[in-house]
């Protein structure tokens, strides 16, 4: 099923000409309407008329999260307040929050791209969507909500948390589509098993999971336990929220709505564009946002792009799983470590669940990494001997994956916090 066949299946040539026209228009629009861009472009000696081809995009200066913070709260808006019908905001966990404004057309666009996403997961009017993303300033809840409304599916705005209630709704209402973070999906699976809910009462078909990094192993685990197709949704507040990209049933990457969000991959070191297929930092440009155009935004997400026709019929470029963040990449004893690699190593050991935390400390002028892993019922042994074997096995698996000896500590089940939004898993306590 394809929500917008024309937009999602056009030829590369058609799309490129559409993108170029939109890029030229949005760059001009941003330059004229947002003082920040005028100043930035001028000081880089860039003129909107310099954009002759799509490749010329590399002439435009980047926009970073810090820039968006600096103009807090409304400095990036391109329209007067009377045109803004909604605002959202990033959590601000790492500093001043970023505020994003939407015009009526922006909200309509948001609904469209999320409708595409939900349709990729097989959602139709007949489905019941249990929306476990937080409603509020966080874009997850309302973004999915607008998409569901476009389709005409029934949306249950349960929001994040309240696990018992989630399970009750799932069983009593007969939820078919679940939307939440992947770690919360796993937590729900755990809780469903513990509550002993009859299997036939759970009618889930697909899950649209996002807002945090996850792995293929985690997908398999969720699919096995919840008996659904687990698909990735990608998005970020600065660009629009969820719906920037979505995985189809082919499960080989997420289709970017590139007619609205133009993607590039750059090297986080040289900042130069990288050839197709190479791994680097994703940079996005909103091609059609009115309220707040964002030009060449450095997402810090590490991924790669793959063009071409997908077996699902779509021609939209696919982005690979986000495997790390260029700013969350840890440097431990000089070695670059992506937390996702540690997760992959942990999950390669049978019975281990993806509930872990990574602590980096520097006790004696030398970096130490400690990975706390919960001991689930499945891997528990009443013999210390066996638990020690498990611990060593985990240490070995991580060593092999990242080339670094770490200390694995076994902790009690459910002692690590479960996330309802973005899971915080890395704690760098080195005070560098």
């Amino acid at each position, binding site marked *: 099923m394809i929500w917008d066949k024309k937009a999602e299946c056009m030829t590369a040539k058609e799309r490129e000409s559409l993108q170029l026209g939109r890029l030229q228009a949005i760059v001009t629009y941003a330059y004229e309407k947002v003082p920040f861009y005028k100043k930035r472009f001028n000081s880089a000696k860039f003129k909107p008329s310099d954009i002759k081809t799509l490749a010329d995009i590399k002439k435009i200066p980047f926009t970073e999260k810090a820039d968006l913070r600096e103009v807090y709260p409304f400095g990036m808006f391109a329209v007067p307040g009377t045109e803004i019908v909604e605002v959202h905001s990033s959590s601000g966990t790492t500093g001043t929050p970023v505020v994003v404004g939407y015009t009526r057309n922006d909200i309509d666009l948001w609904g469209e791209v999320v409708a595409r996403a939900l349709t990729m997961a097989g959602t139709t009017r007949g489905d019941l969507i249990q929306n476990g993303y937080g409603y509020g300033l966080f874009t997850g809840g309302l973004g999915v909500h607008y998409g569901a409304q476009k389709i005409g599916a029934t949306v249950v705005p349960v929001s994040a948390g309240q696990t018992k209630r989630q399970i009750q709704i799932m069983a009593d209402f007969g939820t078919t589509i679940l939307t939440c973070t992947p770690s919360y999906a796993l937590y729900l699976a755990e809780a469903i098993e513990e509550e002993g809910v009859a299997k036939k009462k759970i009618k889930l078909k697909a899950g649209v999971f996002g807002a945090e990094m996850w792995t293929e192993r985690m997908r398999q685990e969720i699919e096995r336990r919840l008996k659904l197709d687990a698909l990735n949704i990608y998005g970020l507040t600065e660009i629009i929220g969820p719906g920037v990209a979505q995985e189809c049933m082919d499960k080989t990457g997420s289709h970017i709505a590139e007619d609205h969000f133009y993607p590039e991959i750059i090297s986080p070191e040289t900042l130069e564009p990288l050839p197709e297929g190479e791994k680097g930092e994703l940079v996005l440009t909103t091609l059609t946002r009115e309220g707040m155009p964002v030009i060449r935004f450095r997402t810090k997400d590490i991924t790669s792009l793959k063009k071409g026709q997908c077996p699902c019929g779509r021609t939209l470029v696919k982005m690979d799983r986000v495997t790390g963040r260029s700013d969350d990449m840890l440097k431990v004893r000089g070695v670059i470590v992506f937390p996702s690699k540690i997760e992959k190593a942990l999950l390669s050991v049978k019975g281990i669940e993806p509930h872990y935390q990574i602590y980096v400390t520097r006790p004696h002028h030398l970096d130490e990494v400690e990975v706390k892993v919960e001991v689930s*019922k499945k891997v528990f042994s009443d013999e*210390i001997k066996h638990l020690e074997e498990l611990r060593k096995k985990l240490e070995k698996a991580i060593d092999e994956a990242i080339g670094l000896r770490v200390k694995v500590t076994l902790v*009690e*089940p*459910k002692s690590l916090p479960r996330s309802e939004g973005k899971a915080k898993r890395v704690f760098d306590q080195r005070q560098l």
Partner: protein
Amino acid sequence: MGELRQLSVFAENKPGRLEKITKVFADEGVNILAIYISSIGDYGVIKFIVDRTDQAYTSLKGKGFTVSLNEVLGIELEDRPGMLYEVVRALGKHAINVENVHVLVGESRNKAFLIVEVEDVKEAKERLKGENIRFY
């Protein structure tokens, strides 16, 4: 000759862990007959023999503890010199590999049980059949 079952609970080596576990027993009116703690570094396994095993097991599980239930060998010990020696000798003679041992004192205090963790309780009992050994 009954079945003696032991609860094993995973616990981090932190103050208050034992308190949390035993509170579950106290609240449920479960009586602890024997306790044994084996720990290494940051964590350990606490083992209990209790009067109402199933109840204790369900409660602990319900409270989110990682807990397992295993059958162990309970060998009667009379309160006299040389008793433990005789038992251990018998175990050795029949090549029964002992993983862990602790003691459960009977209600009368005249009798105690040696709690022996072995891989296969049934097989161990079978091998010890000819010996002058009484089981729990």
